[in-house]
């Protein structure tokens, strides 16, 4: 049922990737995502693919779970491949009705699909190895320099933290209300679409009521503890860069150098 859903996709562990500072992970992810788009030579792709595969193995996250993260965009990958396959002009290999399959098309389709797969795997690596709270923490710290141009870094991070904090609570709540209404004979799985939509009312009304009540309580509790924004707040678990982080920056910089030389 609903209680079986994991929040985000954090997979607890002690791998090198888990131990990296979340700020390092976010910045390096951005760098590598950029690299995936900027360096389109075959050797660069080979290196990037090898790197992604190595990181996936190093993360300790089961391959099955990693591959499952591709599922939502499987069709996009498939159609992108198909379109490139059939619409790229070049040396013809086969003819299917009005379309021509070309060698360039296969190449192009393959690279575009590989690009998408790499994007997903690299981003998943971040979310698999970083707890949602560490992520928001890192975002707050990374956005802090932009405060002077009006980016409300602390408020954004606080909003994200609160939202994340309440996702499991609301899921539990939904589960409980659903079960309560099921105990009163409600059925959410059968009937026409209209009937099923109508069946949502007994869930949504109590859910909204409780969400508002919780928001109210939380605001009260925060004010009672003198919360007044991020000014001068310290953190219980402050982020620190360690040797591992410096090493990974070094490796990333070296790889970038290599990519440039391969252009």
């Amino acid at each position, binding site marked *: 049922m609903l209680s079986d859903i994991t929040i985000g996709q954090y997979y607890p562990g002690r791998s090198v990737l888990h131990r990296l500072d979340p700020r390092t992970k976010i910045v390096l992810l951005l760098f590598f995502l950029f690299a995936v788009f900027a360096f389109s030579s075959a050797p660069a792709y080979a290196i990037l693919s090898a790197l992604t595969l190595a990181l996936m193995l190093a993360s300790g996250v089961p391959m099955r779970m990693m591959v499952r993260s591709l599922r939502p965009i499987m069709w996009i990958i498939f159609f992108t491949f198909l379109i490139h396959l059939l619409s790229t002009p070049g040396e013809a290999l086969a003819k299917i009705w009005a379309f021509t399959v070309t060698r360039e098309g296969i190449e192009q389709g393959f690279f575009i699909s590989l690009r998408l797969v790499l994007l997903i795997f690299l981003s998943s690596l971040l979310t698999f190895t970083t707890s949602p709270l560490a992520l928001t923490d890192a975002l707050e710290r990374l956005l802090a320099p932009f405060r002077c141009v009006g980016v409300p870094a602390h408020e954004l991070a606080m909003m994200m933290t609160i939202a994340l904090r309440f996702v499991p609570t609301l899921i539990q709540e939904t589960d409980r209300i659903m079960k*309560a209404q099921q*105990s009163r004979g409600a059925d959410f799985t059968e009937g026409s679409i209209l009937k099923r939509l109508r069946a949502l*009312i007994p869930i949504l009304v109590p859910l909204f009521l409780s969400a508002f009540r919780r928001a109210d309580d939380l605001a009260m509790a925060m004010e009672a503890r003198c919360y007044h924004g991020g000014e001068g707040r310290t953190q219980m678990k402050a982020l620190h860069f360690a040797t591992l982080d410096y090493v990974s920056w070094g490796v990333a910089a070296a790889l970038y150098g290599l990519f440039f030389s391969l252009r």
Partner: protein
Amino acid sequence: MSIEIKHISYTYMPKTPFERQALKEVTATIEEGTFTAIAGHTGSGKSTLLQHLNGLLHPTEGHVVVDGVDLLPQKKSEKKAARAARMKVGMVFQYPEQQLFEETVEADIAFGPKNLELSGEDVASRVRESMELVHLDYERFHARSPFVLSGGQMRRVAIAGILALRPKYLVLDEPTAGLDPRGRKEILSMVTALHRRKKTTVIFVSHNMDDIARLARHLLVFNKGMLVADGTPQAVFGQTDVLREAGLRQPHVMTLLRHLREAGLPLERTDVLTAEEAEQAICAALKKMRGEKS
């Protein structure tokens, strides 16, 4: 007729790092017409067990059988019977007032019977009947919004919503949680009246050992997903080690009599459950003492 819990185990989120076994090899029988209490510390598996009683959860292993029908149908032909068996068990969740959603008290209570596809008249008569059972005046309350009522009244509306299904077995998860003393008393006396008048089998979870001692005739104690005690309240409350292990205590009257006996009062028994019984026991002991002196 009874609810039979046969060797059930339940695991939350199996095959993930978050796997947690909530119930281990639980076997118990709840006879029709009894008043059964379930006690246990937070996270002991009580709520998980309750959800098995009306098929909201199905055991990972084992079976739950209501009046001879397995709640998890093995064949398609058994599906209808399983649903009927599930509807025999009325489930009042913790803080049931949080499941109210309709605009009027009447409409909310009618939600259950309407799902049973009863006729309009039947629904209306059931609403009246169950409002009466929870001591809510139909004329005064039926057209009001449930959200303007007091906490105790809201809870009674919610319970009426379950009673309107005419359950043979009524399951209540901490029915008095968060109520003031008056609200608690109202809810408990209502449940006892229901048990006596309608012969409804009651199964309730409570953290209040005194309520359990006063009301229940059968007590199940859970600890870490296992059933650690099953018997009459007298017998179970006598097992002080098991209780301590499970993070529970004896009812106050029992503790009082135990201390009195330790202090030298010649009490014949300490396994009393109500204040009245305790009074009799103490009076008898005092008489005996006076008799010995003179």
